[in-house]
Each structure stands twice: as structure tokens, then as C-alpha cells.
């Protein structure tokens, strides 16, 4: 897996201009914006999306055929992509969080609980994004993958809308349920969301392995 990780990090170099731009935007945001958490979300999500680019690079020019003739397994390849995604997403999340903390201290602003919550809530979101995007990218590849993701998000919206309508019709009070959630304590809630998103990532990994096992190069 280390060999594949090295390959993906070497390929990231192609996007170095883009990275500089992201860093520039982030620094500008930190310096001039009142909402420092934007930087954490922005950096983490953009970096996470580079995992998808790495899959596109592998596919380009039929590169996968050669890649899979090397001593790697299909399962190992999938595992590497998930690890790469976690390193990129988690790493940029950690770095940008530290940058936010430093900027707050420099500006003599207090590090409030609200700030911590806003930063920590991004972590499970990154995991969910990875869990949804990776199987799609592996199954459909670059261009088709994007269309498939847009389609799926649409279907999820329609499903949510239908569930809400059905709930309304059956007199189930979601609002009351949501209002009761804060009684759990924000820390517990974040922990539950984190565990659930990790479980989703594990399920997504299993699906991705099944997708890769069926692929022909």
C-alpha cells in the first residue's frame, strides 16, 4: 500500500498551482473573515476531493491495466484509496483547525465551545462525503461518476421529501424529535454522528471492494 500512497502523493504535485490558490484563499479568509470555520470546511472538502482525482489519474490512458499487473490486490487498491482520502481529508482538517485556532489567538478572540463544535462537525461530514463519493468514482469513473453522484443526491432529496410528506400525513412530529436532541449533550451527539459516519465508511469500503473485484481492465 505504501507504494500506491507514494504514487498518489507524487501525482498530487500536478495540482500544485491549485493548492497554492486554496492556501491563498484560506489565509485571506482567516485574515479578513469573521467566520473562521469556513476555512476548515473549505480546505477539508477540497482536499478530500483530490482522492477522486487520483482515481481519475489511475484510469487515464488505460493506466489501471499496468497498475493491477504490479504486486497489488484489488482490495489493497481500494484500501489505499480510503486511507489516502482519510489522510488528505483528516490531515487538511487538522491543519486548518490549528490555523483557525492560531488566527483566533492572534486576533485575541476566545476559543469558544461553539467554535469547537463547528470545527468538529466537519470531520464526520468529510467521512460521509468520502463514503458516498468513492464507490461512485470507482464504479463509474471520472465523468460518469459525477453524473451518478448528482443523480443520487437528487434521489436522496426526493426520498427525504417523501419521508417528510409521509411523516406529515401520519402526524409524526419530527420537529419535536429534533428539539429533544440537544438534551443528549452536544459532545455525545457529535460522538454518535462520528461513529455512524465511520460505520458508513466501512460499509462503503465493502461496496467499493465488491465493485473493484468485478472490474475488467
Amino acid at each position, binding site marked *: 500500500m505504501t507504494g500506491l500512497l507514494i504514487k498518489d502523493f507524487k501525482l498530487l504535485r500536478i495540482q500544485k498551482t491549485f493548492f497554492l490558490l486554496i492556501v491563498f484563499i484560506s489565509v485571506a479568509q482567516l485574515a479578513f473573515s469573521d467566520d473562521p470555520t469556513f476555512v476548515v470546511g473549505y480546505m477539508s472538502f477540497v482536499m478530500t476531493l483530490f482522492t477522486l482525482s487520483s482515481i481519475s489519474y489511475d484510469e487515464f490512458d488505460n493506466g489501471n491495466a499496468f497498475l493491477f*499487473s*504490479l504486486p497489488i490486490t484489488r482490495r*489493497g487498491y481500494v484500501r489505499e484509496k480510503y486511507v489516502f482520502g482519510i489522510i488528505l481529508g483528516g490531515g487538511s482538517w487538522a491543519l486548518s483547525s490549528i490555523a483557525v485556532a492560531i488566527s483566533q489567538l492572534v486576533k485575541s478572540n476566545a476559543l469558544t465551545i461553539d467554535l469547537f463544535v463547528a470545527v468538529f462537525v466537519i470531520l464526520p461530514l468529510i467521512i460521509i462525503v468520502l463514503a458516498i463519493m468513492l464507490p461512485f468514482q470507482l464504479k463509474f469513473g471520472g465523468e460518469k461518476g459525477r453524473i451518478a453522484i448528482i443523480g443520487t443526491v437528487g434521489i436522496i432529496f426526493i426520498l427525504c421529501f417523501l419521508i417528510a410528506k409521509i411523516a406529515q400525513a401520519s402526524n409524526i412530529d419530527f420537529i419535536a424529535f429534533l428539539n429533544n436532541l440537544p438534551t443528549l449533550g452536544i459532545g455525545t451527539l457529535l460522538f454518535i454522528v462520528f461513529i455512524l459516519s465511520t460505520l458508513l465508511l466501512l460499509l462503503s469500503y465493502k461496496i467499493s471492494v465488491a465493485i473493484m473485484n468485478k472490474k475488467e481492465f
Partner: protein
Amino acid sequence: MLKIDHLKKNYNSFSLDCSLEVLPGCVTGLIGQNGAGKSTTFKAILGLISNDGGSVTLLGKDLGAINTKDKEKLGVVLSNSGFSGHLTIKDTIPILSHLFHHFDKDFFLEQAKKFGLPLSKEIKEFSTGMKAKLKVLVAISHGAKLLILDEPTAGLDVIARDELLGILRDFMERDENHAILISSHISSDLETLCDDLYMIHEGEIVFHEDTDVLLSDYALLKVTDEQFLSLDKQYVQRYKRESYGYRCLTNQRQYFVENYPKIAIEK
């Protein structure tokens, strides 16, 4: 080293049914037109595509039992695939050292220098010859026992082709148990290198012979209609109508040299 027994793969307009064997110490050639099934055979051997039937035994193991350690013993060149063009040779070194336990960095660098391959240039900027040499260099730099080379000489000029065939001869000389399976649609590449040759046509092996026998006993007879009528057909394996009469393939060249001194015989 490698034994393929009625390997089958079906596509909409193409069916493969291939059997061949590569023995230790031998270079086996697979020759055929574009689209004859060479690449499909190679992909099936490497597990890149699923098989619809038959069996592949690689390094003494069933294909399904091949693990990453076994794959380290293979050196692979695929005609239409390689490292990402955005990488440089320098980039590939740490990748290869982590993937192959026996990657010989010094040998790799020394050969890259010998072939004039630039270390810091992106591979996509390489010429066809440089790309081909790099692919073969990667295949022979990690202690492989069996090379599986799909069209390694495709698109190369004569000099580059000879250089590449030289690399392969060196590989064979390093260990008497080394073996190579190599495909090409250029027969002259293979006749100087291979110990035996298979010919594949429309997904099936139509011919197999030792190269020595092929070169000494086989010949093409070019005959007129009258000569064709009087020809002893028992040693004619195939014939084809031509504008001048017939072109016949035989595996008894000497017989025709002695008995039909007037007909044109091509080696």
C-alpha cells in the same frame, strides 16, 4: 512457468480459446494480427479480466491462488498501459522499491543512464522508444523470473527494436530458469529471439513450432497453376491463390528442393 489450457473469453464479436505453454529457460513468442487475441490472452494471464473457461497455471499455481508475492516474480509490459505520464523516472523509484522487495535501484539507475532515459522528465514527454525501454527496464529490475511482454517493440524503429531485444537476451542469460512470453505482430522480431512460436488467429492458436524447425524445415513455394497441379500435396500444409498461381506453405522444404528444382522456394 506458464501453462494455459483452453482459456476462454467471450465478447460480443470475439471469442478466445487459447492453449499454450512457456517452459523454464525458454522464450516463447505469440504472433498474430492486431485484434487476433494476443492482448486478451495477456490480460487473462494477469487476472486483469475474468475467464469464461479453461485454466491458467502460473509459476506452478492456479491463477486464482496467485498472491502479491508471486506477482513480484513477474515482469510485465503491456502495449497500451504503463505508469502515469505525469510521473518521472525519479518518482517511480520509491514506488517500485515499496512494491517489489527485490527492486534493484542501482541496476535500474545504471540501465536508465545506459539507455539515455532522463530521470527528471515527465514520462509523457518521452519518445515512443524511451517509453518502451522504460517499460522493459521496470519489468527486469526487480528479480522477475518470468517476463510477460505484450508488444514491447510496437512503434519502435529498427535500432531501438534491436536494443530492446538485446536487453531481453541479457535477461535470459542471467539465469537459466528465466522465461519470457512475448507477443508481436512483427515476425522478424520474434524469430531471432524465441525458442518456439505460437500463432494466434481470430482467438485460436492455429500454429505452434520450435523456431529452429520453423526456420530450417518450413518454406513458401511459389508455383504457377501447372506446377501446382503436378505438386505432391501431402507435404503442403496450406495454400493460397495468388495472381501468379499459388503460394503454398510446407514443413518439408528439403523434399521440394530435391524433387522440384524449378519452383521458387522462399525460406
